[in-house]
């Protein structure tokens, strides 16, 4: 393992016309980290994710994966480097079966890494995310929360080193959120995946992650342990004051 962080953003900036969505954000991620990203609406979280996964080309700044420069590369290269992501609204291949959806990632970016352990094949991944029973159903026929899981499964099929989860807990019930969090924990623990998790459900996030990055109006305003971030005055001011105080 070389000395470089798994993924590193340096002064990453994304501008759309006159709007600066991400403003010189720098962050480094190590292997097997569980990091949460929070911030009020419009803080630039999803755009940051889009930049980290290659879907959006940063206006300025650099992106490195294990020391290799990735800035400006096309999205499939990111996937090949082991960066996988889910989308806020699940984008599954509606006309394919659940199994085929998982298989897709295995056929492409997933080929680059050995087929072992929990991500060995389609069946094991389905087992991991809990959709083994739905394997033959068309993806359009499963419930929205199951589609969420399928999204994650598809990303896992690329056998990533880093997983970007975009609001996977949104709209779920308390129990479902707990189950989701357990799954994410498991991914980190057993697969040594780095998981970067954007979430609106701040309380849940804070309970499970070991590190929190707070974005506000495109800038990073905090980066550290949940307990510290919660006490950060700037964060409290920028964000839902009450909810933060509750989590502390």
């Amino acid at each position, binding site marked *: 393992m070389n000395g470089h962080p798994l993924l590193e953003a340096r002064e990453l900036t994304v501008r759309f016309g006159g709007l600066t969505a991400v403003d010189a954000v720098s962050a480094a991620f190590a292997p097997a980290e569980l990091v949460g990203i929070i911030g009020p609406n419009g803080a630039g979280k999803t755009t940051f994710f889009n930049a980290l*996964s*290659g*879907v959006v080309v940063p206006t300025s700044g650099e992106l490195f994966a294990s020391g290799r420069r990735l800035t400006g590369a*096309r*999205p*499939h290269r*990111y*996937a*090949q480097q082991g960066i*996988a*992501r889910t*989308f806020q609204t699940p*984008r599954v*291949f*509606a*006309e*394919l*079966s659940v*199994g*085929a959806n998982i*298989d*897709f*990632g295995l*056929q*492409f*970016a*997933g*080929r*680059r890494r050995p087929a072992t352990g929990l991500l060995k094949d389609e069946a094991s991944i389905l087992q991991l995310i809990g959709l083994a029973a739905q*394997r*033959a159903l*068309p993806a359009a026929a499963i419930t929205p929360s199951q589609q969420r899981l399928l999204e994650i499964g*598809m*990303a896992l*099929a*690329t056998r990533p080193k880093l997983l970007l989860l975009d609001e996977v807990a949104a709209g779920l019930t308390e129990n479902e959120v707990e189950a989701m969090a357990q799954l994410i924990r498991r991914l980190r623990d057993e697969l040594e995946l780095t998981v970067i998790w954007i979430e609106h459900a701040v309380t849940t996030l804070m309970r499970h992650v070991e590190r929190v990055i707070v974005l506000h109006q495109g800038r990073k305003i905090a980066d550290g342990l949940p307990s510290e971030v919660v006490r950060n005055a700037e964060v409290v001011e920028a964000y839902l004051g009450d909810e933060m105080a509750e989590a502390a």
Partner: protein
Amino acid sequence: MKRDLVVLFGLAGWALALPHYGSEFVVSLGLSCLMYATLSSSWSLFCGSTRYLSLATSAFFGIGAYTGALVLGQLPWLAAIALGGAIAASVAVVMGLAVLHLRGTYFAVLTFGMTELIRHAISYWEKQVTGTVGRVLSVVPERDTVYLTMLVLAVTAVLVSIALRRSRFGLAMAGIGADEQRAQTLGVNTRLVKVGGFALTAAFAGAVGAVMSVRWTYIDPATVFNPFIGFQTVLIALIGGAATLWGPLIAAVVFSLLAETLRLQLPQVYMMALGLLLIVCVLYLPGGLASLRWPAIGGWRKR
């Protein structure tokens, strides 16, 4: 797949026998069927999966035709056909690199524009630079050779379609058609796949053009770059069901029959009918005739 292959070789065998017991008209009809079967199969192969609707078939056909006309004296028959396909494919690569990174509809309009551009460019070149209006092909192979070549092309197109559908390349194309960005984030090099698929389509169209130039013995820009060729290809593929294997083939046969019977007597009526048919098809049967019978749950994995 076995069933597909059996049907294919059955049809091919039957088609093979045609020149021996059929009249001149029947053979001509058969040739026309085979031509459109090849064109629409190879079109659907790429455009049906990826949903990038190419209107450039006429351009590649014409390029193949002109290549054939120009080299037939110097090169042997098969080499000329291959060259026609190769040059058309190279043009497709250039065209593709320029326009395939754009959205579907945009791509369609651009391919249409480029086809017309190529047509006008060649017209201009022929008139001003080489001083000819059309080209005459004097060294032509026998009718049966031409027919056989077209048959081989058609069978190859279908075989390639069958093979592609089971391959990763085909899966990639289907992913692009379903959700291109998602496919990218799962590791598909979309640019490579798109340009490759487009070039493949062009190669077939170019080869077909080269064969037909020999059949017509006289070609000029207006006939070989006639946008109608591309239009009929798209129509056949859409009506048959662009995402399926047999849909375009069946439609190709039906249309060739219609074309040969109607076109000579009432050419405008025929064209009008086709225009109307395309509109009706887009409105009421977007999945083509094939969608009436087979459920549209991806042809890739039937689990």
